[in-house]
């Protein structure tokens, strides 16, 4: 039985088995490659997506659990890099190899929907589950603050 849910605002119907991790459904069945596989055990955050606005590890989320829910991936931020987080990521030149950055951006996006002006401690708490082997953490911190400022000014 297919699983129906909203992916980046579009209703989709996925045929994969219900116990298939959402990560592989998004990548291999629905063809959105931005969400990455890093560890498969919820330790690295490369596969972070939003389910009903909350950041989750899609490698640990069975497809069946998102029936009727809203799933958002990095592709939902914008395709033209107009989201304040994407702009800040570019301004601060955050990515190096870039492989973890989709997950970083989605964790940061979830943070900024709940905290308009996050403290260092709040940034740390929200981002500590996202590993970056290239060590871009200090630029991530700075870029989140830049994006938060822009989003507050827009509001």
């Amino acid at each position: 039985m297919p699983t129906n849910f909203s992916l980046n605002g579009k209703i989709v119907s996925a045929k994969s088995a219900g116990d298939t991790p959402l990560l592989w459904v998004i990548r291999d069945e629905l063809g959105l490659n931005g969400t990455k596989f890093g560890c498969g055990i919820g330790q690295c955050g490369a596969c972070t997506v939003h389910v009903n606005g909350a950041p989750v590890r899609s490698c640990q989320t069975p497809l069946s659990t998102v029936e009727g829910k809203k799933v958002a991936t990095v592709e939902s931020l914008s395709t033209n890099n107009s989201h304040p987080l994407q702009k800040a990521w570019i301004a601060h030149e955050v990515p190096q190899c870039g492989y973890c950055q989709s997950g970083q951006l989605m964790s940061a996006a979830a943070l900024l929907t709940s905290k308009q002006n996050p403290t260092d401690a709040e940034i740390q708490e929200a981002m500590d589950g996202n590993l970056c082997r290239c060590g871009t953490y200090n630029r991530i911190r700075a870029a989140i603050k830049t994006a938060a400022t822009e989003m507050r000014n827009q509001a």
Partner: protein
Amino acid sequence: MKLSRREFLINTTVAGGGLVLGFHVPELIKAVEKTLVAGTVHTPNAWVHIADDNTVTLISARSEMGQGVYTSMPMLIAEELNIDLAKIKVVIAPPDPVYTNALLGAQITGGSTSVRDGWEKLRIGGAQVRTMLVTAAANEWKVDASQCRAENGEVFGPGGRKATYGHLAEAAAKLPVPKDVVLKDPKDFRIVGKPVHRLDTPSKVNGTAEYGIDVKLPGMVFASLEQCPVIGGKVKSFNAAKAQAMPGVIDVVEISDGVAVVASSYWQARKAREVLSIQWDEGPGAKLDTASMMAGIHAAAATAKVISIKKTGDAAAVLAGATKTVKAEYELPYLAHATMEPMNFTADFRGGKCLLIGPTQFQQGAQGAVAAALGIKPEDITLKTTFLGGGFGRRLELDFIVQAAQISRAVGKPVKLLWTREDDMGHDYYRPMALHRMAAALGADNKPTALTFQLTSQSVTQRAFGLAKDTLDPFMAEAAVAPYAIPNATHDLVIHDTGLRVGYWRSVSHALNAFANESFIDELAAVAKQDPYAYRLSLLGSQPRFANVLKLAAEKAGWGSAPPAGRSRGIALMEGYDTYMAQVAEISVEKNLIKVHRIVVVADLGRMVNPDTVEAQIHSSVVFGLSATLHDQITLKNGRVEQTNFHDYPVLRLHETPPIDVVLVASTEKPGGIGEPATALVGPAVANAVFAATGKRVRKLPLTPENIARA
């Protein structure tokens, strides 16, 4: 004798080096090109392609793995081509001798060599094409070339004449490539040396950047490979009946490294792999465990043949007669690379030809290894390099590429092979374990009069490039000779094979030797009852680049003043990859647990191409080195690697990452490499700070609470 890695590899390995000027244009790149740009493509040399529609594509002969070559290599070409970076596209080069890295003797991305290798070669490449475009314009306008100049994509001539590069490209491509071109005076640089926005960043913030894991081919199937839990073990027999019956499974095939399940989706392949039943011949590796391997290293250090790295004076005699001597031994563990993107490659072997697409640091090696494995010619292999989700030396290896090709051959379809994180952790080519035995004699003035340095470790180069036994491996001797003035010094190497496969790991032997040297000089300062900074400075003599970075680091870190309450500082100094570097770590220790509060890095790397990337690479190297310093070690039991994933091989997280203050020395020296040296130096800087904080000299990494407690 100073045998540089450059001399070594050019003399002894594949494909000769030399400054390849790019006269020859690979056929392959033309094919790649045509898929990317509209209209006819004209290829004046191996670095520049100009289409009729004025699209200019510049070639990066190096793989982009985070270090920024996708931008810095084109910057060097564009500087002389006189074109704005906003107007160009970039393609990563296919395998071809013209793209050989002259510092490493093959088409390799590694060793912090990209800028050093490309510094002149790529500017010459750009200047050649600029000259050809100007000549083409002058010919068309029947004027002298000296009356024409190339400026941001157009050539201007007398009387207001102008033409785009696209218009001139066809004629320019037919001209002979000029052998002698005049390069700009660096003071006239408009691109090189300026902080430039990376060309790959836009694709890396919206999910469109293509990594190996993202490759898709028509009709492609997915593979998951079970390898022997003991590295080197072979399949004895297997039963695939259950796996064959699982949903989506297309085939189960045996290849040299194990049994692969091939299915119509990755997850189906992975699930079916779990029900494979395989009997292994585990081989001699099954006996390995880390404690006995380290015991073997100690035994080899005491008895095995010594290879001289450098000898000055007679250190043994001075030590024997000295009244004040210091001795110490340092131990370093195996480490995994743990790139964020697990190993993967896509292969399509049909009709005697093989297409390979994926992340590699060694295009030529991939081509050669797959050709050998499949029994075809290298020219029957087309290889396209994607972005790399991290490299750090792991993607110099070819195992996963050969595996993908073998699986594709077995099933007759295009196959994407993807490893799990557990596969990756358990089947790496590990940074070798190491033991340093150090001894020094101090004179009446407390300065060292003699030093003996002996490293015992395993040679990656013997395995990877067939270096002869009992020969000095220059990739084990990096930063072995510290800059301090010591009249009698003996530096020796003992090569000992522990039985586990080893690989080049970010900063290679710099990380081994700098830990021993910079810890030991700190120990000598303590015995001499001198400040570790002042003691080092007093031994630097007339080496201004070393002294300068050391002084600047001390100044930036506030060395002369007391650190904030509860904190302590450690300092370290090294030259690596032609880069001079000093670091100061500011830490606190509570219940043997280290908190790093700040790292200061001063680097003199000569001329820089993109200073913003230089800073990013230093941050990156420090964080990478801190993971190894504080947490990481690979251990073996019954031949099996005990670590499986990030929960038991923890890499640094955001909350542990301190502010990193970077000072870059303005310099007109030739460029040095910056992808690695900071990784090697942060370990001793932190260990020296631990000594300052606790009085405990921890001579074993990682600096875990257990190792600090035992020190």
